[in-house]
């Protein structure tokens, strides 16, 4: 399975098109926060931008932290979230070491599902879907050691 990466954030112009696309297409919201990818300045607008998004941990600390099983490990990294099981405790967000989970005012979590729908909206090609490291290392291994 592929994962979303943000390898060229130095090109980012801060348009928020990715966040808005995620909120719009994945979550049915108009928002720049209720999204699996959020764009922040790195200390004022003169210092460029950074993306807050899931780094596809495996094992994912948010899965371990989730007390109700709403979060489960996604194959290839990241998580699958069943919102009907979520009790809005916020433990997932607190467990995430890179602030990739956004909680809205009701405590509902928003996290990247690695669907890649934000990617085509980036005008500077900052984002990329790649094979997860486990899969790619397996592929590489086949090539090097046939």
């Amino acid at each position: 399975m592929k994962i979303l990466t943000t390898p060229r954030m130095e090109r980012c112009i801060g348009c928020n098109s990715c966040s808005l696309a995620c909120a719009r297409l994945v979550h049915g919201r108009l928002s720049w926060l209720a999204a699996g990818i959020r764009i922040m300045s790195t200390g004022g607008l003169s210092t460029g931008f950074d993306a807050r998004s899931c780094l596809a941990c495996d094992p994912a600390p948010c899965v371990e932290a989730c007390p109700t099983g709403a979060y489960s490990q996604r194959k290839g990294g990241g998580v699958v979230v069943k919102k009907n099981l979520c009790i809005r405790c916020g433990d997932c967000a607190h467990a995430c070491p890179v602030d990739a989970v956004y909680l809205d005012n009701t405590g509902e979590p928003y996290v990247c599902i690695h669907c890649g729908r934000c990617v085509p909206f980036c005008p500077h090609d900052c984002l990329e879907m790649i094979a997860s490291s486990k899969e790619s290392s397996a592929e590489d291994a086949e090539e090097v050691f046939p």
Partner: protein
Amino acid sequence: MIRDHFRALVVDLSARKGKITTHDGRDEVVGGSGLAAFLFDRYGHTDRSWQDPDQPLIFAIGPLTGYFPLMSKTVCAFKSPYHDQYAESHAGGRSALSLKFANLDALVIVGKAPTPVCLAVGAHHLDIQDVHFLWGKNVKSTGKQLRRMFPGSGHRSILRIGPAGEIGTAMAGINVDTYRHFGRLGGGAVMGVKNIKGIVIEGDDMFELPAGKEYQKLFQNVYDQLTTTDMMKKYHDLGTPANIAVLNDLKALPCRNLQQTSDPQIKGITGETFAEETLLRNQACSGCPIGCIHLGYVRERFHKDHRYYFSQVSYDHEPIFATGAMLGVTHGFAVLGIIDEIEEMGLDVMSAGVALAWATEATENGIISDKETIVSLRFGDAKIYRQAVRHLGNGANDFYRRLGAGTLRAAGHYGGADYACVLGQEMAGYATGEAFYTAQSLGFRHSHLDSGGYSYDQKHDKKDVRKAVDFLIADEQDRALLTSMVACLFARKVYTPTHLAECLNSLGYTAIADNLETIKQQIQQKRWQLRLASGYQPEAVVIPRRFTELTNWKGKTDGDYLKALKNAYAQYIKIIGARA
């Protein structure tokens, strides 16, 4: 926040309280320009001075803000210190989306704080904090402090003023998110007179989208048009500075206080040169994938050892024309250095550059001397202009305070009105001909963006007064409609009336979509009514002699045609504004 009414936060600084107010009228005034006029009618006083604490400072967005690409601008309305009449100024940055996600159609600020404050608003908070310790600080350091003091990093907009706004100069702008501005007509002074050093708007709410596929499909369609066609290439690539070389070739670029309309040294400051030599990176307003903000850099050695600092400076056609061509400065980095100084002072770059160009010619003519200007102004001397900018921003003496009130004000005192390059306010960077001189002189915002007079000049050779004025009026109406949505005017070719109606329909604003023709007339009318009621006399506007002496690719300005255009346009404005 698709709603059939308006939701505004009205903050009374004197009482240190805010109130959420709701207003009917969505189907009539839409938002943005229309809403700002509506709110000024409600909270403003056309018969009182701009300095009256009761006067409102209004920020308004529109029904399409955030829902579609390039719907990314905010309209700021106030009674202007420049002419003491109703005025608008527009800016982008994160301001529009921050207001949207603060769940506000408008922010209205009345009253006066007893000490300098920063107003922080969001969907769930209102905070008025004392920031007396920031008074006197420039725009950059103020921004740095406010970033630390208030929450919402990355999803907020920080508006602030510099020393120019604090002293109430009519050329003071409001800085928006470092690289954008409510630049013209003195909005910065309105903040200053209310003791507002900064405004932080946090966008911390979210909204449901319309059900069904229509909206999503339409969004994609608009997005594709903007990003997969050449329609926006000009703004994306070189940006508006591409105009510098083009206008210079046409002999339509105001140079050296408009003593020339081209400059043989122009290559040093063309869009191409800026892009190749000074461009560091691009940036975008939130909700716009174009990235038209071009950031150049200034690198300065401050010690005999190799010690440098650097600064990022946004540039566009207008700042380059005003601080480059108009001042005879034809080196890109030198131009950026002047712009950087203007940014720190919180001045409007066009006004400051054009005013200093007049002051330089007035010095050459012996009307004023170092006694007034403190430094010896000379065309081409960027170092001296940087010092002059500080004097202007700080209101260093009577001369600079008079100049800050407007070039014609200063000329009224010292002489030299014939060569004051003022078209309602300090001119924009187009010496294209009679339609533009008329459009900016009389236009609502005295902006090159009020209507496409500069474009009309380039496309029409025939001197047909009726046709030209009809164009200006109709184009102004179309643009007032766009700035009520609130669209960036760079997207005007995408957001045709048909497209606008589709976008509005997809969000359920069917009554607006069905009545665009009537609505745009009403908005135009409402704005002119307020302007006229606050003292505007379009027939009294004087176009300085310098403009009638100009020669560009079309030949010398036709004084009779210009006069006829001006008279006809003034008549139209009065008729429109008088309609009940």
